[in-house]
């Protein structure tokens, strides 16, 4: 008995020595620090996501019994025209997001050089991003109402009211109107990110370029653009994935009616009005895969086409 307890003590001592050694302590503390964020990440991101993937194989409501249906929900996502065709609307938002990137890149470049009242302009243009999305929706509902803000501004500019479209009623223009609100809201944010990147470009490069006889446009093409490409790629990817999951403008302004229901709006309706939780989960998983694919394609495109020359210089 005594021997065993002694041995135990010796073991414990050895363990303690090992445990308090610098190497182990370092690992231990690292794990301890990581534990909380990892547990939070797991509980609130990966666990619900795994649950959702699980739901997508069931026919279920929020309450009541569930029935396993295999891939049926997924097949429906692709075969039911009402679901998949809504993805077409994402094209509008993608075009919009490209316009938005061009505008914000242009303004960012202009504003990052010395300019009178530059900060005021920055503030004004960033401001829409700070407004709550629901409020933006209400602002634009009135903005687009026949004879209200937009129409009266345009008639003041000399347009005839009769020649103007009904911004939200005409199925030909209403999606562009909604895209416009999204551009208005987010270009300021993109711009600020770009300014941040451009400011970090070494000022001596411009000087050297000036001495070499570069004009502003050449400076932009050969100095600014290569230097901010990480931020640029990030912004493009965020905008494209954002346009795949556009929700707020169509939901708040038109409630998805009149041919403006994006994939997300449809998913919301399937999940919350029709209470087809399994079906909506399948739609969400499909959207995620599409976003993965889009992101991958963009990375690929940037790597091998757009910044090829810049990469070559790096070598």
């Amino acid at each position, binding site marked *: 008995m005594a021997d065993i307890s002694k041995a135990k003590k010796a073991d414990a001592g050895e363990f303690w020595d090992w445990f308090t050694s610098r190497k182990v302590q370092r690992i231990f503390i690292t794990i301890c620090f990581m534990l909380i964020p990892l547990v939070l990440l797991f509980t609130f991101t990966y666990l619900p996501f795994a649950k959702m993937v699980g739901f997508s194989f069931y026919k279920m*409501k929020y309450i009541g019994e569930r029935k396993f249906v295999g891939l049926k929900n997924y097949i429906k996502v692709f075969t039911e025209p009402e679901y998949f065709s809504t993805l077409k609307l994402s094209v509008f938002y993608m075009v919009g997001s490209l316009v938005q990137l061009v505008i914000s890149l242009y303004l960012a470049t202009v504003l990052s050089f010395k300019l009178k009242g530059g900060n005021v302009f920055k503030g004004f243009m960033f401001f829409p991003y700070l407004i709550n999305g629901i409020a933006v929706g209400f602002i634009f*509902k*009135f903005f*687009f*109402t*026949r004879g*209200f803000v937009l129409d009266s501004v345009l008639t003041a500019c000399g347009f005839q009211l009769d020649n103007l479209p*009904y911004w*939200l*009623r005409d*199925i030909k223009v*209403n999606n562009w109107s909604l895209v416009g609100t999204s551009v208005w809201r987010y270009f300021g944010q993109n711009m600020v990110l770009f300014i941040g990147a451009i400011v970090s470009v070494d000022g001596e490069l411009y000087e050297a370029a000036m001495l070499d006889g570069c004009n502003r446009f050449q400076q932009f093409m050969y100095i600014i653009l290569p230097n901010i490409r990480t931020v640029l790629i990030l912004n493009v990817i965020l905008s494209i994935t954002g346009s795949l999951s556009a929700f707020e403008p169509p939901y708040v302004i*038109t*409630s*998805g*009616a*009149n*041919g403006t*229901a994006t994939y997300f709006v449809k998913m919301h*309706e*399937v999940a919350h*009005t*029709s*209470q*087809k939780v399994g079906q909506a989960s399948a739609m969400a998983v499909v959207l995620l895969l599409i976003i993965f694919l889009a992101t991958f394609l963009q990375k690929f495109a940037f790597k091998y086409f757009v910044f090829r020359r810049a990469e070559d210089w790096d070598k």
Partner: protein
Amino acid sequence: MKKRIAAMVMATVMAFSVAGCSGETAPAGGVQNVDAGTGDGQSTTGSGDTASAGGYGAIKLGETGTDITTTIKFIHHKTDREQDGTIAGYIAEFNKMYPNITVETEGITDYAEDSLLRLQGGNWGDIMFIPAIDRAELPNYFEPWGSVEEMDNYINFAGEYATGGMTYGIGYMANAQGLLYNKKVFADAGVTNIPKTPDEFIAALQKIKDNTDAIPLYTNFAAGWTMGGGWDAYLGAITTGDPTWINQKFVHTAEPFKDNGDGTGAYALYKILYDATAQGLIEDDYTTTDWESCKGRINNGEIGCLVLGSWAIVQMKDAGPNPDDIAYMPFPITVNGKQYATAGPDYSYAVNKNSDADHKLAAQIFVKWMVEESGWCDFEGGYPVSKTAPTSFAFDGVEIVTNDPALEGEEDFLNEMNSESELNFNAGGDSRVQDIVVQAFNGTKTYDEIMQEWTEKWNDAQEELEIDVLY
């Protein structure tokens, strides 16, 4: 140090909980104390017996219980009427007849939730509007008003809040399903008889368009709920004359949207919207309609009619200088020469079972006075609850019906069908009704094509859920 922190935390928690408790119970406790002081002497007079045996029918206003001195408490959801003094005005009027009964009121903003909590807590007062509880639970909390049979003599909808043959709730007002319109606009347009069929209705709308500047039918398209909630509400007895249709037959019907040819049924209902849109009888830009401003516009005669329940009448009346122009008509569908309207009570008064005899009697007297004498129901533009009180609600020659509940064992069928077909009738199917307007306006689908699509979805859902097709 640790202990001190723990102690401080405990102290804070306790301070909060004490504050919470006292905040919650002080008014109600106060009420209880008051009655303990003043009620005791009075309750020996024997009024206690009349209370328990009393009920609605036995109370004679102005005679029963005039000797009671007590304070009763009434909790309700009408915070707007609490604030604008309407309820206080009724109580002042009531006190002319019963000066010794003091009525305390409390308007609760989030009534649907809070009332359930109060009910569980028990100490909520003497009169409340019945929250969402099962009918079978009613006797556990509330005093019966009398048998349904007897109550039928005095009020409408006595069977609504009833269980075991006893009525437990009396509506403060009732809602009827019809159509809200502006009398003056109809008169100015030369519509002399209220339209009774879809054809007459469309003709009337056309007259409004031709002869006035008003928008004949304002759809409130953008709000969404006004479309799904507005139009679907007429399904059932109003469109078919059959109170069993919506909750019992609909799910078993093979072709619920087929053209009956006589302007009845679901087909005729939604066709009104399609035709009105196709013929330009709705607002110009339906995508930017605004719910708040439509109230003032119908009041001012800029709108001919709105598809809304009678609950909306008072809002439209209050929204402008012409409350007398706002009127309500039965929905323009006639089945076999008869028009129907569905109706049901709004929130309903019930008296606390656990109050003492004096409080119960005083509470019952007050409620009876409110129902019979106050005129509150009429003031709100409601369909009458009392069978004797004067009312301005004119639904002449219209049969008031209540849609029958689903058959036993089939309660979930309509929900399941709605979900499976994604048509969502009376369940937020706003986009389905909005789509009618879009298709009609752009001419992209004919009405029959839309109905055909609905039928297919409905039949697919029946097949999927294995629901028998019987009709």
